């Protein structure tokens, strides 16, 4: 593309010496983008928007926050009560984290469905997984800062995971803590790291976009663009579509911030951290729940930690696990089923992460019942003693489905969910690559040659497209 001529002489002067304006014009203005992107493609820019929101609100909050165990909790409350608009900044930041994860999860699942991770975008995908890992670290560190009960105990539990490492595990934990338990040295270093990582994320996002621009966006059909008839300039088409998507998203965000600001968090965190008193249920924030479920579904501590790590590491290898030449799930009828089951599976895992592993989920009444109550019910129904009922209840589920005392132990449900999760990536996808017969993929995004380049083709091609 020829370099644009800017009308403003100041801009021309700068651009001649530092071509930032030409660069931006090429990358964000005239940038050829597939014309058939659907709304699932809005979530990347929404994620970028949320990153900026989190950094800006975080910076302002950091100006008022004190990272010392004796002052942290009260400094947050001072922000909520005395700092002008402090409550708004805090709630924006707190709920912004949840919004960020919602947007990123949808963005990831878009990639999983449309095969965005396939060649030549493998590195782009891996950079994304790296961003996700950094986000998880950042969010964990940030949650510790208010120094509530869940901040403290969540930090204790997660840092204790490292003790699972053989031989050096305990020393590593002591190193992380800077002491013999989570205390002021821990809080201080977590504050610094929480401040630092978002800028690391920003840098990786820049590289992520560089990788994206190497080949351009994929598209819902999963086929390559063939020429200018398949693309439109990013501005004004996608800038305006992103604006619209942003408006919808902000209404969703605003709902949480202004009317349910604490619904996604844990009320227990409004109690000051007390090292001498453990809360009844230590639960991480909702965006960690699936991984918490995977961790708890394996009885062995070390293997549980490895499984939890593996559940994210496996994503790095996705481009080589799924070798189907067809990118988009639209044209992969069998894959589609497994994909949606995966989505459902992740929701189930989230569910399992939230509740006590020994509790029972009663599918017919939608209750969660703790182990004692469940055993008592079985004893009642069968007219046997509580001890006997303990044996009858067994490890998996209650019996006698007809009388409604059928329940699945949460930990078992989590184990089933974990099995499917790994099976999807390690067994299903590789097998599908070999055995699935995909539908015919369209030849091109626009109708070729005849009929101009104006409409998206829904007609199938005569020959199958090989990506």
């Amino acid at each position, binding site marked *: 593309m020829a370099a644009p001529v800017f009308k403003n002489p100041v801009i021309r002067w700068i651009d001649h010496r530092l071509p930032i304006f030409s660069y931006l014009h090429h990358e964000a203005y005239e940038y050829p983008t597939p*014309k058939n992107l659907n*709304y699932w493609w809005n979530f990347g820019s929404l994620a970028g928007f949320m990153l900026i929101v989190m950094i800006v609100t975080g910076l302002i909050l950091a100006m008022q926050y004190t990272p010392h165990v004796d002052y942290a909790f*009260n400094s947050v*409350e001072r922000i*909520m*009560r005395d700092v002008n608009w402090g*409550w*708004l900044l805090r*709630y924006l930041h707190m709920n912004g984290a949840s919004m960020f994860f919602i947007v990123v999860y949808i963005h990831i699942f878009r990639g999983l469905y449309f095969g965005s991770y396939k060649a030549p975008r493998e590195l782009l995908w891996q950079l994304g997984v790296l961003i996700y890992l950094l986000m998880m670290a950042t969010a964990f560190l940030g949650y510790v800062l208010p120094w509530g009960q869940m901040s403290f105990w969540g930090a204790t539990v997660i840092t204790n995971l490292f003790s699972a490492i053989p031989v050096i595990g305990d020393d590593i934990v002591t190193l992380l803590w800077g002491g013999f338990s989570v205390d002021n040295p821990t809080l201080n270093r977590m504050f610094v790291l929480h401040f630092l990582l978002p800028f690391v994320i920003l840098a990786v996002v820049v590289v992520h976009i560089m990788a994206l621009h190497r080949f351009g966006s994929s598209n819902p059909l999963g086929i390559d663009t063939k020429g200018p008839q398949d693309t*439109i300039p990013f501005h*004004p*088409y996608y800038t*305006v*579509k992103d*604006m*619209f998507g*942003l*408006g*919808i998203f*902000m*209404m969703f965000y*605003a709902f949480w*911030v*202004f*009317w*349910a*600001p*604490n*619904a*996604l968090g*844990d*009320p*227990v965190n*409004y*109690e000051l951290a007390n090292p001498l008193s453990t809360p009844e249920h230590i639960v991480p924030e*909702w965006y960690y*729940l699936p991984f918490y479920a995977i961790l708890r579904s394996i009885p062995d501590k070390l293997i549980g930690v490895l499984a939890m790590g593996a559940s994210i590491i496996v994503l790095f290898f996705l481009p080589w696990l799924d070798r189907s030449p067809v990118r988009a799930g639209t044209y992969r009828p069998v894959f589609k089923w497994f994909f949606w089951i995966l*989505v459902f599976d992740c*929701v189930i895992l*989230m*569910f399992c992460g*939230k*509740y006590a592993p020994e*509790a029972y989920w009663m599918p017919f009444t*939608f*209750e*969660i019942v*703790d182990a004692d109550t469940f055993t008592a019910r079985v004893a009642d129904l069968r007219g046997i003693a509580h001890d006997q009922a303990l044996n009858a209840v067994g490890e998996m589920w209650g019996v006698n489905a007809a009388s409604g005392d059928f329940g699945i132990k949460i930990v078992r449900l989590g184990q089933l969910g974990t099995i499917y999760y790994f099976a999807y990536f390690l067994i299903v996808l590789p097998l599908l690559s070999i055995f699935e017969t995909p539908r015919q993929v369209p030849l091109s995004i626009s109708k070729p040659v005849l009929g101009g380049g*104006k*409409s998206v083709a829904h007609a199938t091609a005569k020959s199958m497209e090989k990506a």
Partner: protein
Amino acid sequence: MSKRRIVLGIVTAIAGLAAVGIVAANPVHHAEVHTQSWSFNGFFGSFDQEQLKRGHVIYKDVCAGCHAMSLLAYRDLQDIGYTEDEVKAFAAEVQVEDGPNDAGEMFERPGRPSDFFKAPFPNEQAARAGNNGALPPDLSLMAKARAGAGFLGHDGADYLFSLMTMYKDPPAGVTIPEGMYYNEAFKGHQIAMPPPLSDSEEASLDQQAQDISVFLTWAAEGNLEERHRTGIKAILFLVIFTLLAYATKRKVWANVH
């Protein structure tokens, strides 16, 4: 957009909301909590200042003897309708430690509006010593700390109301040690606090319980009314902005579709 896509989109949205709901909802019922309808709930929820004042009086006369509320300052009471002079008077009722003076000694002086509510005990040990080993917790955030988890969880005020009104005689076969009291709402049903409220000529137990629960909600979440007001403005703006953006999007994309 084809009908199929619209349907798919709606189904996805519902599934998404269901996912959020599953995670956010909490069908586990621990202790009994009776939900009330509160004036501060809903999109336009607000506080009744007269109720807040009644609740404040209950806190001051009944609760403050054992429970601190250290995150609130006397000046905050202006937000519930007291005048500046009334607030000064509340503050001046207590003696606050200040200093050191030029002789190096700490001294007592009457409270000022800028002071935070004076705690009944100087430290945790003194509080326990004065209450048979039990620690009366600080109430500044109790309404938020006792909310039911999740989107459909009960308000903290519901729990507090239940706690105030569900002192009962222990059921048959249950013995309560000396110094403890049976309460259906409290976890474990044994609470060290004697029933703080009772029916009186001026106000019934239920009324007092409501008033104190609302006051504690205000104490924990004083920004509530401003938050709702700002939210309305934000949503109105966003609706206009989104409609405009949509119109522009349709216009710009007209020749591509």
